């Protein structure tokens, strides 16, 4: 693999004059943030660079939570025309670093003191082989519950803090003729719930053994079966029309009071805020019952592709701008996530954001911060998708829990 890539790089180098590599002094950024809020947050970054005389060449490719962009990236790198900087998630960064494609950001990282302010669990992805290869923009945590406060009050439901309380609450909602769980039947959404249920059911050791270490015993354990059983319970509280629904339409169900809960990452907050709802007043945000101590995360990062031997001045400037506390704050307020550095003041954030930052810091220091399986931060894409297959098949009733456990062990071994 390495060889293929090196040959490509060499070919690119010899043809550098012919191909349209970015002009010196500009950065070409491949990303998938094309919605209004995200794009206006990126504009902050763009303006920052422009004041330093660096042009921003925009290369947006939306779709599939970045999968479309990753395909484009592969074509671009293979053709020897890699973008300057690329938005990436989790194991994609590691994979590209393994290919030797990413520039080493150590100089800028040590000058800016990144090691001290970025949580250990994130550094696992931002660094490869002791070298900083990516600048993290944010930390999304995925084990949130979003609830319609008025609906819960009307039905006399207190904020559930255990699985049993959650089930009781869902039953009450269902009995009242509303949808208990707003959910969209897409593999990644099914997996997002599964992620939280597994953490709640088996605890952090089980989570790590099953999803990070891929231990066959953990994958085939009774806890795994229990997790699948609980997924079946949740399935019974989802409306009939869930299949294929986009997550933001599921959020809308909670916002409009048609549904009580949504299990979704913190990006859902943006939908509530856009609809003019206030955290704590109109809607509640709390950790999935049984995971109050833990944070499962995913983190958007910008990796720099080698344009020569050393990091270019523009890349260094971009990395520095991404990591500046002011950008981290401004961006994450809009995005619903929390800053990737723990020393950013939380004044600009709302109640949910403040709690998210507090949770992150606490989880990070107590060793309870885990990369989310559902979002490609626990294991590589091949395994993640193999797990999706089983989770989704089970959620759609194609497997019972026993079969699902067996298939889980089997699918993971096939994907390795």
């Amino acid at each position, binding site marked *: 693999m390495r060889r293929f890539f090196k040959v490509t790089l060499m070919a690119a180098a010899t043809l550098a004059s012919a191909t349209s590599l970015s002009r010196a002094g500009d950065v070409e950024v491949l990303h998938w943030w094309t919605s209004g809020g995200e794009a206006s947050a990126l504009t902050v970054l763009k303006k920052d660079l422009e004041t330093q005389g660096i042009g921003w060449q925009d290369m947006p490719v939306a779709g599939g939570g970045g999968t479309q962009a990753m395909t484009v990236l592969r074509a671009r790198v293979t053709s*020897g025309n890699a973008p300057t900087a690329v938005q990436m998630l989790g194991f994609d960064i590691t994979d590209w670093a393994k290919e030797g494609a990413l520039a080493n950001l150590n100089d800028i990282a040590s000058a800016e003191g990144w090691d001290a302010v970025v949580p250990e669990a994130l550094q696992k992805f931002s660094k490869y082989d002791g070298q900083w290869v990516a600048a993290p923009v944010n930390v999304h945590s995925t084990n949130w519950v979003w609830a319609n406060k008025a609906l819960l009050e009307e039905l006399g439901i207190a904020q559930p803090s255990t699985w049993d309380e959650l089930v009781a609450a869902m039953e009450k909602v269902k009995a009242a003729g509303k949808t208990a769980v707003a959910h969209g039947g897409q593999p990644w959404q099914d997996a997002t719930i599964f992620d939280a249920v597994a953490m709640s059911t088996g605890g952090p050791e089980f989570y790590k053994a099953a999803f990070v270490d891929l231990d066959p015993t953990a994958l085939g354990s009774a806890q795994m079966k229990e997790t699948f059983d609980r997924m079946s319970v949740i399935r019974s509280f989802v409306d009939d029309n869930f299949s294929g629904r986009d997550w933001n339409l599921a959020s809308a169900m909670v916002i409009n009071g048609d549904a009580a809960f949504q299990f979704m990452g913190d990006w859902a907050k943006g939908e509530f805020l856009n609809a003019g709802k206030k955290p704590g007043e109109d809607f509640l945000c709390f950790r999935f019952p049984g995971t109050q101590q833990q944070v499962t995360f995913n983190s958007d990062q910008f990796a720099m592709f080698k344009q020569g031997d050393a990091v270019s001045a523009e890349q260094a400037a971009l990395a520095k701008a991404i990591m500046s506390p002011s950008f981290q704050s401004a961006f994450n307020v809009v995005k619903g996530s929390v800053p990737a550095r723990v020393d950013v003041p939380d004044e600009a954030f709302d109640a949910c954001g403040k709690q998210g930052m507090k949770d992150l810091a606490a989880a990070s220091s107590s060793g309870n911060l885990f990369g989310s399986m559902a979002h490609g931060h626990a294991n590589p894409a091949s395994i993640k998708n193999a797990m999706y297959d089983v989770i989704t098949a089970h959620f759609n009733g194609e497997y019972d829990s026993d079969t699902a456990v067996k298939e889980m062990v089997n699918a993971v071994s096939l994907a390795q």
Partner: protein
Amino acid sequence: MATNATATVVRTGAGARFVIYTLLGLFCIYYLLPLYVMVVNSLKPLSEIQSGGMMALPKEWTVAPWASAWSTAQIGVAATGLKPYFLNSILMVVPAVAISTVLGALNGYVLTKWRFRGDTIVFGLLLFGCFIPFQMVLIPMARMLGLMGLAGTVPGLVFVHLVYGIGFSTLYFRNYYQQFPTELVRAAQIDGAGFFTIFLRIMLPSSGPIAVVCIIWQFTNIWNDFLFGASFSDFDSQPMTVALNNLVQSSTGVKEYNVHFAGAIMAALPTLLVYIVAGRYFVRGLMAGSVKG
């Protein structure tokens, strides 16, 4: 050629005609429904879509979604609308269609009028190339474009579409020219006309119908392509489909369906226009060649 461009002589009674018109009308509804949904919803304010009733006519008509999709919708970091990408697509489609049509015509001419040993095998090879799944060629193609110095350029995109358009354009022209009387070509040759003179003076002037078929086919496929457009373009050469995808697929925030539909129709207008304008030549062109073995 005993072709006659008139309808059949089969006679039908009044009752049968009523049934025929009803059936044809019902199928018009089937074909028009999705377009109706798109058009109607592109002319509504978002609130009307959200409050349900995707089939209903707008209570309040508005062209704001169209204006937004064209010039102010968020495509990337800059809120440019689809406008700048339109030109990129045109720059890519026009040369790609022109070159692949001309090459197809030349190939068809050679394969039918200048036959040589093994020409059917050559044609078979070209034809089978139509069936290669595009997802498969992405990585090797990227590598080749890099080696040729065409990565991320408009000529690179044109080249890719040309490569995978040759099969069909050759098929159309070959089948068409096969029915063109070879005697005419031979007579011209005896009069001393050369290879290109015959092509330009004799073949081309009668190629109108099949050229229409070929151009429609190529234009539609190339204009609508997303995969190649996204993978082999640069920040300054992304075609319309990639921009439309960015508009429609944005992952967070309120989905402005009315703007999405307006953008979608806008992106489809050039192909629709081609079909409406050239549509009547289309059946004639098909009739003249490609469906006759």
